[in-house]
């Protein structure tokens, strides 16, 4: 695949899975999730923002660095996770994802907000704070 080369792949693929995070700790980067472990992540952390993306989607790539930064900013309060909708179509169908990027904001395992399309960082921060009361 010759998308954005190594640089881009790193951004999206090199994240940890939730099992890499010791009990009681919080990640400072987005977790990579798929259909098999998304439920475990939603059970484990009360506040989760799931970034639904695919490698061919430019606005998704544009959003990636913002997600990385927010994962640091909100560490301990909100966990960020990325799911590749191309490889996890059942998840996309379940949540009626029709546009990417879509951010699904979960509170205690329930979707409380969906944000469609890339937005400026400050808008996203406010929407996340608002919907999760953090």
């Amino acid at each position: 695949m010759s998308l954005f080369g190594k640089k881009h792949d790193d951004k999206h693929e090199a994240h940890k899975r939730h099992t890499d995070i010791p009990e009681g700790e919080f990640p400072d980067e987005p977790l990579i999730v798929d259909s098999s472990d998304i439920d475990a992540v939603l059970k484990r952390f009360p506040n989760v923002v799931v970034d639904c993306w695919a490698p061919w989607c430019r606005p998704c790539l544009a959003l990636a660095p913002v997600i990385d930064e927010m994962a640091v900013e909100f560490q301990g309060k909100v966990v960020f996770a990325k799911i590749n909708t191309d490889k996890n179509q059942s998840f996309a169908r379940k949540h009626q994802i029709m546009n990417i990027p879509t951010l699904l904001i979960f509170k205690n395992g329930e979707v409380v907000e969906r944000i469609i399309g890339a937005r400026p960082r400050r808008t996203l921060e406010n929407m996340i704070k608002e919907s999760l009361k953090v």
Partner: protein
Amino acid sequence: MVSNTEHFNVVVVGAGPAGMTAAIYAARSGMKTVILEAGSVGGQVAESPEIENYLGFESVNGMDLASTFRKHTERYVEIKEGEEIEQIIPEREIIRLKTGWSEYTADAAIIATGAHHRKLGCNGEEEFSGRGISYCATCDGFFFKGKKVVMIGGGNTAVGDALYLKNVGVDVTIIHRRDVFRAEAAHVKRLEESGIPKIMNSEVREIYGEKVVKGVKVLNKATGDVSDVPVDGVFIAVGVVPNTDFLKESGIKLDDIGYIVTDREQRTSLPRIYAAGDVTGGLQQIIVGCGEGAVAATTAYEDISNPYWKK
């Protein structure tokens, strides 16, 4: 919060084809140059399914061309991604550029912020945004595999995107408000050959649904009849609007639509500020953006060496 200010000879705003070409020309003429990009490299090019009219590439997908552009550009200049310029302040000797958290100064600024999709403006467009409406076929086409959609528009993007959708297995019908397409003949010929159904001379008046899109109401302009076309998705490609909102307070001259007004050397109404590409209107194509970028950087170089505003 602004930490420290970095100074450059040239700051280029936007890493689309216009900005990247301008940056290469500026750097190669010996000026200290940087590109600030709000999102990721490539601009609209990275959203194009297939490009067949950019010299040297018979047929190339947009993501691939964007990555070729990036490689070439990064030989000369750094591209800072995630840096959205919110304000440009022309001062006596320099131009000040601000993002939400950082600040840059420059002897000259080249604005190449391009354009983004225009909304259709019909009922239901807001309500079903994200629930079956899309402005980016290469992003979202995949979710509509095996489903029925309409593509609204009659220019190159609409026709190109309709062909793309058909290719990835979407059941697409194109709706255009005129009786002939605006798209170039090569595109139209391919559309004819593809067998994609066409609804001509017709306007989408409403997008309706129940939680998600269920269909569109289409007015036939010849007969005045409104018909109902049930669909799962609506793709909209009805032109673009320039990304110039952040310039409103700068005092730079914009035309009625919001495009930056430039002279033939790509100078704007403000000294030290140049513009290139889709943000200046005209023929909005990659090769034109590149050409204007080259001119803008060369003019900036000449002006910095020999300032016309001091004469």
